[in-house]
């Protein structure tokens, strides 16, 4: 092989590898995006069925119910405008409590129950997850504009 051919082979191989890598990356990327919806958006039917997404808001005070198996918990997430019932089986993060912000990741069932696979922990009791703040702000804006 001449030097020029070798260089061509090197460049072609590099480009092919780069192309494959890019395709791999973008494909995996596309299928792993997890979108965030506010309870208002979920009740308006904007959230997808059969695809994992995140919902966030405040845990409705008095809504946390522990099921008889001891590990399944049902609670209501609200952005003060709408409410979404959520169920989760497992151990909740330390900072989960009624009246505090929460972000849950999971799928919405046809019955309207959000089955969470993950409930996200916050790291600080004074800290409001930006998603939750966003949900509350949106709901507040809508109630103001809805008023005649």
């Amino acid at each position, binding site marked *: 092989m001449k030097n020029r051919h*070798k260089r061509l*082979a*090197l460049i072609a191989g*590099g480009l092919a*590898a*780069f192309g494959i*890598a890019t395709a*791999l*990356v973008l494909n*995996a*990327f596309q*299928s*792993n*995006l*997890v*979108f*965030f919806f506010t309870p208002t958006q979920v009740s308006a039917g904007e959230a997808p069925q059969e695809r*994992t997404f*995140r919902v966030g808001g405040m845990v409705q005070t008095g809504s946390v119910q*522990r099921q008889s*198996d*001891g*590990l399944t918990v049902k609670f209501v997430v609200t952005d003060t405008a709408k409410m979404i019932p959520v169920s989760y*089986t*497992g*151990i*909740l993060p*330390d*900072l989960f409590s009624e009246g505090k912000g929460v972000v849950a990741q999971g799928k919405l069932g046809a019955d309207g129950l959000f089955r969470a696979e993950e409930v996200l*922990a*916050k*790291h*600080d*009791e004074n*800290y409001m*997850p*930006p*998603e939750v703040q*966003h949900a509350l702000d949106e709901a507040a804006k809508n109630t103001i504009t809805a008023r005649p």
Partner: protein
Amino acid sequence: MIAELGHFSLILTLFVALAQGCLALAGAARDNAVWIAFARPAARAQFLLIIFSFATLGWSFIVKDFSVAYVAQNSNSQLPLLYRIAAVWGGHEGSLLLWLLMQTGWAYAVSVFSKQLPDVMVARVLGVLGLVTAGFLLFVLLTSNPFERLVPAPIEGMDLNPLLQDIGLIFHPPLLYMGYVGFSVAFAFAIAALLAGQLDSTWARWSRPWATAAWLFLTLGIALGSWWAYYELGWGGWWFWDPVENSSFIPWLVGTALIHSLAVTEKRASFKNWTVLLAISTFSLSLLGAFLVRSGVLTSVHAFATDPRRGVFILMLFAVVVGSSLFLFALRAPKVGMGGRFELISRESLLLVNNVLLAVAAGAVILGTLYPLFIDALGLGKLSVGPPYFNAVFIPLMVPALLLMAVGPVANWKSAKISALMKHLHVPAVVALVVGVGAPFLLGRWSALVALGLALATWIATAVVKGIVDRMRATRTGLRAQPRSWLGMHLAHLGIAVFVAGVTLVMGYETEQDVRMTPGSTVSTGGYDLKFLGVNKAQGPNYVADIGDIELSRDGRVLRLLHPEKRSYISSEMPMTEAAIDANGLRHVYVALGEPLADSAWSVRVYYKPFVDWIWIGCILMALGGLLAISDRRYRLKRRERKAALVAAGATA
């Protein structure tokens, strides 16, 4: 008064840093020996001044001076002394002071360990470092002054975030910062070389030990962070692909590419442009990491306060650093020669592939980390990228890199023969195949991923051992007679093998259960039985705790009692989980308390993690390899000695 002295000393450092940056660079450009000579003492003065500032802040914590706002926010009169000291860098302002301490410390180290370098070069390097220091000092003084007073002074402080009250916090940030900031030295060397227009193998040899040193600290810092998250967050995961973790991992990936590319530039004078670009990128990405973590755009334990001014300032600093260095690069790069030529199959080619894979991997991680931020900033919605993305991309990219890792060290520079490679590698290939296919049968469930992971780990480990043994036989010398940089490389590669084995076995055979346990009930995991005896209350220095008693036994024989804790910190009312772990080097039995349920039952996490220690042991081996490499005496040879050594080498060749 003490705090004001610290503040004053910071301002003084700013002037010294600015003067050093300007005078040293101007002196180097105009060949002014006096200005050039100013660089070293100025670097040392800055370090001493920052040490003083740091000490005054530490003193304010020790004497519980809550009139200093930062102390009041991050400390409490009940906080034990050790954590009061660690709290100095437990918040945003103090951690930036730590950053400055490291920054000036590295510059100090350069001023001390650069006797073999020409003074002009040292002046340029220290000048660039001085400007970087000045940038960070401005940031601290304008947006994040740790010495700000609180009037009137509160009687009690707010306390340190309980998550951070842990031995892991004491060492994790300093190590990580040593890594981040350390890459500024490699960056400064690259800029100095561009300024001088001298991009040659001498420059690569000078910056190699510094890049390796920064890399080894970053490795340790990331590993410690992972270990800390594993036992402190109580979820039992060792890596979450969390944006904060990613922002330290991206510079690591690029830094790893840099230390490999520097090897080519030193030995063969090739890849010069690429190496400079990597040195610039590594430091820029460290800055980007700092921006992501410090600006509060990310939700995490590291995001202390959301002050938009800070984010904007770091972003500006980032823009200035990247913009000016790339501009300089664009001016000088066309003049840089191509360096030594090489064949398609050669060590250069293999290292090139390594660099491409690492760069693509870094790019993929950057995409997954930054894309949600962009979408949010553009107001197009909120989304996140899950760990499956990173796993799906990262693993396929690293498989070829791991395969080639055994080939690179035995391939010749310039041109390698396939037959020679086969001669070196057929034994590792056979061993890897046997272990990869066989071992999963012994461990239980056979799976292709476990087989692949174990085969790769064995392939690398066997190649390392064989490489060392072959060389000792060929040269008829002992282990200690081998060059340390060469041994260091092999040790670091062995660390990767151990790491890969650990990751493979944890991912393949771990079990995780969340269970409800009443006193007297038993759960088994990985052949062990755990009996829940109950939970008792206890009082700590600044918290109250529920402490569980769980009996660990195997085949009816009681091994020990485990005591997982659930703490509630008094000042912040923040609950914290302290996991209990039984470790023996081959597996962890991991127990964490969930919540109290009815009938004195508790929800309990019970995890079995085989070989999880190997993940961190692998990282430690990598870091030790780096340490061994920088201790190689050829980096410390004086100029005259080196000339003699070169002549001697020429004579024997």
